[in-house]
């Protein structure tokens, strides 16, 4: 698979100009540099405060790394981060928030997207107890303004760039295929941002190559991934043999996609582009095994970004609208920067760069 878009054009139809997509991808493949999300402030007022961190699911590496980074950042700022470890059950989040209220924490963080919709009464109780709650990495940057209205009990949000990831996946497929994308996009709509990511993907195809690109979107709940995704993909490939990209809304689904593609005997013609930057999926780029590109996020950076917003809340500083965490596109040309074997934390340049950025911002340096 050549990243050079023009090459594939002859086989599948009229040549399409893919330079715009390529430009986007090239930009996204580069290393990001730290940009201050907002004005500097003094964190010393937050010294000695305690926050309770309730993550989506402590058995997921994404949350583990972010949680650890939050702990690290908290330590530097003199804030105690109490982790409420859980297995992703709603009753456990509820308990986590309640335990935060009971411990009279100074703030509660819903890290990596526990859905506030299922915590209505608890968030109200937190607000009543004067404890601010910060929701992170759930709503796309474009949705945060709406979310503020929907969730009045949440003091601040840390936005995510989910939709942009959808756009980037589409761009990569366009560039990679020379503008002839027939994508099969598997989403899990019970997760808040999923539908938006799918839409962003589809919109980008419509914008960049309306005549030659299309995508079919199907919904499979996460609880059915193990039993349904493989057969679903496999039958889709049977039904429409011209499908050349299979896209998971979250890359945790990738192994089931692989099974389906292999079983359908389509390993030669189908590729995967994915979002989340999970180590095992990045490794598949290195192995040249179906996955051609991954949109990843610097997880430690996310942790620090979370803490930036939290510290702003703790110190009474106005929360920022966007934490400006970056996305990076990995393909075979740059995936080795993430280590071999891939370490999910790595691949985003020197972590001290953004850490120093935040330290400066917080007046610690």
């Amino acid at each position: 698979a050549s990243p050079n878009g023009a090459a594939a054009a002859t086989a599948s139809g009229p040549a399409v100009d893919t330079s715009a997509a390529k430009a986007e991808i090239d930009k996204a493949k580069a290393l990001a540099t730290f940009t201050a999300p907002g004005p500097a402030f003094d964190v010393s007022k937050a010294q000695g405060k305690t926050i309770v961190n309730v993550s989506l699911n402590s058995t997921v590496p994404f949350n583990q790394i972010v949680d650890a980074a939050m702990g690290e950042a908290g330590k530097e700022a003199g804030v105690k981060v109490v982790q409420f470890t859980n297995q992703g059950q709603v009753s456990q989040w509820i308990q986590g928030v309640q335990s935060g209220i009971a411990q009279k924490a100074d703030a509660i963080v819903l890290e990596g997207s526990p859905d506030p919709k299922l915590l209505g009464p608890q968030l109200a109780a937190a607000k009543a107890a004067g404890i601010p709650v910060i929701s992170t990495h759930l709503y796309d940057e474009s949705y945060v303004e709406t979310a503020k209205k929907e969730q009045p009990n949440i003091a601040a949000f840390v936005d995510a760039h989910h939709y942009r990831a959808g756009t980037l996946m589409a761009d990569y497929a366009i560039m990679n295929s020379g503008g002839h994308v027939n994508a099969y996009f598997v989403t899990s709509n019970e997760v808040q941002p999923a539908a938006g990511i799918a839409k962003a993907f589809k919109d980008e195809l419509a914008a960049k190559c309306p005549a030659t690109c299309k995508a079919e979107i199907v919904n499979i709940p996460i609880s059915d991934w193990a039993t349904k995704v493989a057969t679903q993909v496999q039958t889709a490939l049977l039904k429409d043999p011209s499908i050349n990209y299979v896209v998971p809304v979250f890359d945790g689904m990738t192994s089931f996609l692989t099974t389906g593609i292999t079983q359908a005997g389509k390993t030669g013609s189908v590729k995967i582009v994915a979002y989340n930057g999970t180590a095992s999926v990045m490794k598949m780029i290195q192995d040249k095994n179906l996955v051609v590109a991954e949109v990843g996020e610097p997880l430690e950076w996310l942790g620090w970004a979370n803490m930036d917003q939290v510290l702003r809340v703790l110190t009474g500083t106005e929360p920022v609208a966007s934490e400006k965490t970056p996305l990076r596109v990995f393909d075979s040309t740059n995936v080795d920067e993430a280590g071999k074997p891939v370490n999910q934390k790595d691949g985003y340049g020197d972590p001290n760069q953004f850490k120093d950025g935040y330290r400066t911002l917080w007046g610690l340096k």
Partner: protein
Amino acid sequence: MSAPDDTKDSTATKDVKNSRSSKANRLDLVQRVALPFAWLLLIVGFGIANPSVFLTAATFQTMLGSQAVLLVLTLALIVPLTAGDYDLSVAGVLTLSAMMVAILNVQHGWPIWAAVLAALAMALVVGLVNGLIMVYFGIESLIVTLGMGTLLTGITLWASDSATISGISQGLVEYVIVKRFAGISLAFFYAIALCAVLWWVLEYTSIGRRLLFVGRGRSVSKLSGVRVGRVRVGALMGSSVLAALAGVLYAGTSGGADPSSGSSLLLPAFAAAFLGATSIMPGRFNPWGTAIAVYFLVTGITGLQLMGVQSYVQQLFYGGALLVAVALSQLARGRVPLDNG
């Protein structure tokens, strides 16, 4: 929290008051209180390890209040278990019930009581259908309710369009989780009240006894004039209704409903039901034993969570505690096979 003395006597399965051996009596007592005792030990242990956080009223209040849904779901299970049947559709009923309350209340503007009634009616129908298929076709409850559970999941996905729905009337939320008594959410007291009701039904009504008879000896019961089919259908209807109540509590606790989460409660509920059958009235599924089992497990998990241990340790505790607790209680019991009805 335990049954009055005379009940214990009248229904205990072991050689209670066996005049010949006081040793047996002592063993029996040991086994009855083994689980409550283990629970106490856990509390003491975590108290020592983490006094400032664990040994606070707030921790206990949260612990007690947060498991009402699981407790009610487990109560739902023990009704058919007593009658010798499994109900795997309770998780599906819970999810659909919560979802119905959310959809009817939030999207269609029904008052909360009407939405709750609709959910209960749905549960009655589900239980009835489960039961009729089981009895009429002579199919095992396990497979009927497995099929029904899957069907309900499909219906939930369809009705909710796979989305989480929030914004349920404050009224419900208020009376489930916001209002407190002694610092504990009302949900806990509802669950305990259901325990008491179920205990009364199982111990002091002929319907409860018939459940037990049918569970322990189907053809003897039939010979004695028990309408076995009706009792089994009734048990499944009872479990469905209790599961729907658990769903209402779920909706009240989280102020919304999502299309999938009920299923993760099924195995913990079975674990609690079986663990509960080792205590208070060993060898029988019983509501108070169940309550203790639920709170024993949740105390362990909460203690570990408050200590911030890794998630896998919690899993290890859960599995390990289940095995060890049941094994110890069996040792105390002289390794008599547990009778699950």
